């Protein structure tokens, strides 16, 4: 076969695209995750957390009230459990008006990066609107979306994704950024 003929065949092959040709992929091993699990994902300088037994401490808010709520896949609707947590958050935030509030929206890894940023924004806003409805001044609050960039659990399973689809209410003595 002459080169030109072969060339034409390559052209033809390029032009002919086979239907549905999914391929399984390889990859390499995970380098492991160290299980770091902070409250805020960034942007906030937080002071001493204090003793969780002190009802006015940030530690009390994070551990006893609960600093986060969880969402169903692709959803930003607040579950009954989430509403209960947020109502308790609102009571605490009303009683402790000196704290600034950052609401972080997060998504699990089962979506595209851009969509997850938008989804996290929607989740953070749902929490903020609920807190506003409970009497918290919107001026105290700021929202940010981390999309899927800051999971708390890295395992490729539903039990981890369930924990990553969250909005975290980060309280601090002052906002930065």
């Amino acid at each position: 076969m002459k080169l030109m003929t072969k060339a034409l065949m390559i052209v033809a092959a390029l032009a002919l695209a086979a239907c549905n040709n999914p391929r399984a992929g390889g990859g390499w091993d995970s380098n492991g995750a160290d299980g770091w699990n902070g409250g805020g994902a960034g942007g906030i300088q937080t002071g001493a957390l204090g003793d969780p037994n002190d009802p006015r401490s940030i530690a009390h808010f994070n551990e006893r009230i609960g600093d986060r709520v969880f969402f169903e896949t692709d959803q930003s609707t607040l579950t009954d459990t989430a509403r209960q947590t947020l109502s308790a958050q609102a009571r605490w935030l009303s009683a402790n008006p000196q704290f600034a509030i950052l609401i972080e929206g997060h998504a699990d890894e089962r979506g595209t990066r851009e969509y997850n940023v938008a989804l996290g924004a929607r989740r953070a806003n749902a929490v903020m609107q609920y807190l506003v409805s409970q009497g918290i001044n919107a001026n105290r609050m700021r929202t940010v979306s981390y999309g899927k960039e800051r999971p708390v659990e890295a395992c490729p399973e539903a039990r981890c994704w369930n924990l990553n689809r969250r909005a975290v209410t980060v309280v601090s003595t002052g906002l930065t950024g």
Partner: protein
Amino acid sequence: MSILAHPAPFRPVRAALFAALACALGMLATLALLLTASAAQAQSGPLRIEITEGVIEPMPFAVPAFVAENSAGQQYSDQLSRVISANLSNTGLFREIPASAHIARITSFDAPVQYADWRAINAQALITGAVSVQGNRMSVKFRLFDIVSGRQMGDGLQFQGSTDAWRRMAHKVSDAVYSRITGEGGYFDSRVVFVAESGPRENRVKRLAVMDQDGANVEYLTDGRALVIAPRFSPNGERILYTSYETGTPRIYLMDLATMRRQVVGDQPGTMTFAPRFSPDGGSMIYSLSVGGTTDLYRLNLSNGQRLQLTNAPSIATAPSFSPDGSRVVFESDRSGTSQLYIMPANGGEARRISFGQGRYGTPVWSPRGDLIAFTKSHQGRFHIGVMRTDGSEERLLTASFLDEGPTWAPNGRVIMFTRETAGGDPALWSVDISGRNLRRIPTPGPASDPAWSPLRP
């Protein structure tokens, strides 16, 4: 053979993109015609398409070490042919016949080709070349031969530039060979900007990086202190748009690669901005802005700062991409309840849904040829890279894995690069032909994501 010195410079090659790369590539000069070939069109009989079991047999070719025309050129003679061989072999369309099997030796660039010797080892194409070096300047020339019909294919070409740019010259030779044999534009002399990842997943360090399309010459553009995602090349390859969490909230930055200077663009207090992409003329960007839980698309004129809101819906509109003529925009929206793909005029207006298959669709990217849209699809727990026509017809899935996302087109619209993450594994860059063949991992120094292909370099 006589060499005709062609009087005109052919393609001015712009100087290095990186000032930081002090090498200043400066491939100033030229593609020079070496020969007026007698018969470039070796048409031989009627067009025949033979596809055996749906897989084409790669074309066997030989690319002996380039002839060093002076002693300073010796160190490049084998390196040039190795880069060319890797480029062509990596397409899956060509298969190299190793030098150990060669009968003929190329010792002079202008000596007649011994076709019988190359036929004897079943080579169908032969690339010969020569290199000479003066100081930090080098000259590389090549010829392509059709061994089967026993004639040169196209004219010889010469490239001149800095020795720092030796790989680029090999890429330019590869592009010319690929182009002549396939009839398609090349894509080897191009770069990829991506996100280099390190550290634990829960507190990932992400840095912007840029490299040649084959993974060589990696350069880091940010230091990793701020989370960065989804960089995009400008149409002239000189600027990058990306999203950074530097101030704690996602904002879009515009970076000039030559100076490494950057500025915030499209920012508005109290909002989040992300998913930027240049218009085909480079004069504006389209992006997402989130406020009050709603994410809409905006267009910003990068010269005068004029802003235009393109969508206004209580839902998510993101991942926009222009058509190559700049008249339309394809994007992802969940206004129907799940993420689907839509096309609308580039200045806003009615959006028409184009994806109707099962599952969720996202990150649509218009092909540089204008004929196809590449996308991410998730369905039943699997993620795919696929392509469809711009009216949504002829959807084809090219890949499947635990997580494939974020396609980017090679400059010739024939190859797609994307991010692949295996379950529990790190992300890496992969490429696949739009035929669905030739799935390959692109080498990177570590975990990598969010590739964006540059245009072909000038």
